[in-house]
């Protein structure tokens, strides 16, 4: 009796770890990314150059950081279109304050505070007023960027006061050959992998995405949780914004424009499975596609077509997979 009970508890519907791995979309997205990298190495001289790889790694880190936040939103059945605007708002707050002579840490805290407020407003309108996430965050996409323009008077900022070098080092520097944003991405991915899988917050995010009604009936504080999800998403965008300001060494109000496409694409490529690693791998594939188009000399006008198509194909793949299951 105890034997059969134990075996029932241990039994899982997947057969072997290998079959389990091959069943995840993350695996296939990663395979596609690696394949694309190999092809580019053969087809172009420039892809495998240290300089290009460094650029790819850094560019993808910004998208991937936000894609991790977006993963929580998508796993809960929502969407956040305002991340590009949260990003520019945070970047603007940090640079305006630093230009005004404030320290990096104070300015960064204020920038994260601004992102938090954006997420809070998104979350409150969605969770408590019951408005559709698509509409709320679309409105915020416009509103937050406009606020960034007001803040900076639409001027470019490239002087960051006493902590100028610190900001540039943080966002644009590297240690042991790896760009700093990549370290932050790795740390965030590690932490959030644990949070998604092993905490009640993570479990409840998925419960809301699976059956919001059931989550409410079982007493999960669905509304509060939703607010926290949109705040988290905005904070990842804020973090990326601060780092991007340091990387570029200058901030303009078109920073992060249409970034939400790459972010949502990255988070969705992994089939919205809601793993931090999936978001990172998805973002990687998007960046490799973008980079390959440039290196292969294909007109940048085609970029949107390729990225958009690959997102739709990935989601279609996921649908088909779920229908079979």
């Amino acid at each position, binding site marked *: 009796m105890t034997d059969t009970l134990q075996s*029932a508890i241990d039994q899982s*519907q997947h057969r072997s770890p290998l079959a389990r791995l091959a069943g995840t979309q993350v695996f296939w997205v990663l395979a596609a990314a690696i394949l694309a990298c190999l092809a580019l190495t053969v087809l172009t001289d420039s892809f495998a150059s240290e300089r290009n790889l460094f650029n790819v790694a850094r560019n993808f880190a910004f998208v991937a950081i936000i894609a991790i936040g977006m993963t929580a939103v998508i796993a809960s059945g929502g969407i956040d279109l305002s991340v590009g605007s949260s990003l520019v708002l945070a970047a603007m707050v940090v640079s305006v304050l630093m230009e005004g002579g404030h320290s990096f840490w104070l300015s960064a805290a204020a920038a994260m505070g601004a992102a938090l407020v954006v997420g809070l407003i998104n979350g409150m309108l969605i969770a408590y007023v019951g408005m559709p996430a698509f509409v709320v965050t679309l409105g915020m996409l416009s509103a937050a960027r406009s606020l960034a323009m007001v803040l900076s008077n639409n001027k470019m900022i490239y002087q960051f006061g006493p902590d100028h070098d610190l900001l540039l080092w943080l966002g644009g520097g590297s240690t042991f050959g790896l760009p700093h944003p990549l370290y932050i991405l790795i740390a965030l991915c590690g932490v959030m992998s644990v949070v998604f899988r092993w905490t009640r917050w993570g479990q409840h995010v998925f419960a809301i995405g699976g059956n919001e009604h059931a989550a409410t009936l079982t007493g999960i504080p669905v509304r509060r949780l939703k607010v926290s999800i949109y705040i988290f998403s905005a904070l990842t965008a804020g973090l990326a914004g601060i780092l991007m300001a340091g990387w570029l060494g200058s901030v303009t109000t078109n920073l992060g424009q249409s970034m939400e496409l790459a972010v949502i694409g990255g988070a969705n490529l992994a089939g919205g499975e809601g793993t931090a690693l999936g978001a990172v791998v998805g973002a990687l594939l998007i960046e490799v596609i973008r980079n390959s188009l440039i290196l292969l000399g294909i007109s940048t006008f085609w970029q949107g077509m390729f990225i958009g198509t690959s997102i739709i194909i990935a989601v279609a793949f996921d649908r088909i997979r779920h229908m079979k299951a």
Partner: protein
Amino acid sequence: MSRLKLTGLSRSFGAIQALDDVSLEVAPGEVLGLMGDNGAGKSTLVKIVAGNFRPTKGEIRIDGQLVELHKPIDARERGIEVVYQDLALCDNLSAASNVFLGREPVRRFGPLAVIDYPAMRMRAGELFAQLKTETRPRDLVRRMSGGQRQAVAIARTLLSKPRIVLMDEPTAAISVRQVAEVLNLIRRLRDQGISVVLISHRMPDVFAVCDRIAVLRRGQMVASKRAAASSPEEVTGLITGAIETA
């Protein structure tokens, strides 16, 4: 003293009067069958006792104590557990996660509270064994049969030591063998002194396990009598309105 006592309970949704001045008592260890046509207000009554809806009027007493149920957690803290009609399961989570939904056990590592999956699977496995179901704790609910899903929803109610279990049509979508299992489970709950309110459209099930039968018609309680003193014919008449009250 009654385990559960409802007095003058009313609830309206806009112009619809879903419950109209309903009074009802359930004794400890009693199984009450709640019957009525579609839209009679059965689910609404369950949801009020479960803390999902506030009544427009009326009061609820548990073991003689007046209670205000604002949220599901209030009801749960007073030992009220529910199996919802739509089961309230998350398809994308495992059976064990669904059993523990909203009350996952955690282990603390400093500031980090980590879900204790092994304990969850162990306990869920025990409950499934007790229910004699083929359900496995790790399986995703998405891939389960109707009966297995039902077992997950029922196992959820047994997690804490409940005083009252409300079941909204637990035998509607499952096989004959599992209907018998669910009815046996209801008897086991009763033997432990737990009160059960069973909503069902299936006359044989109700007469098989219920001590008393109450009938709702268009929001009004038209009968509440001992099952032994009634008959399927009488209950059918009460449900349809062929018999006014009993």
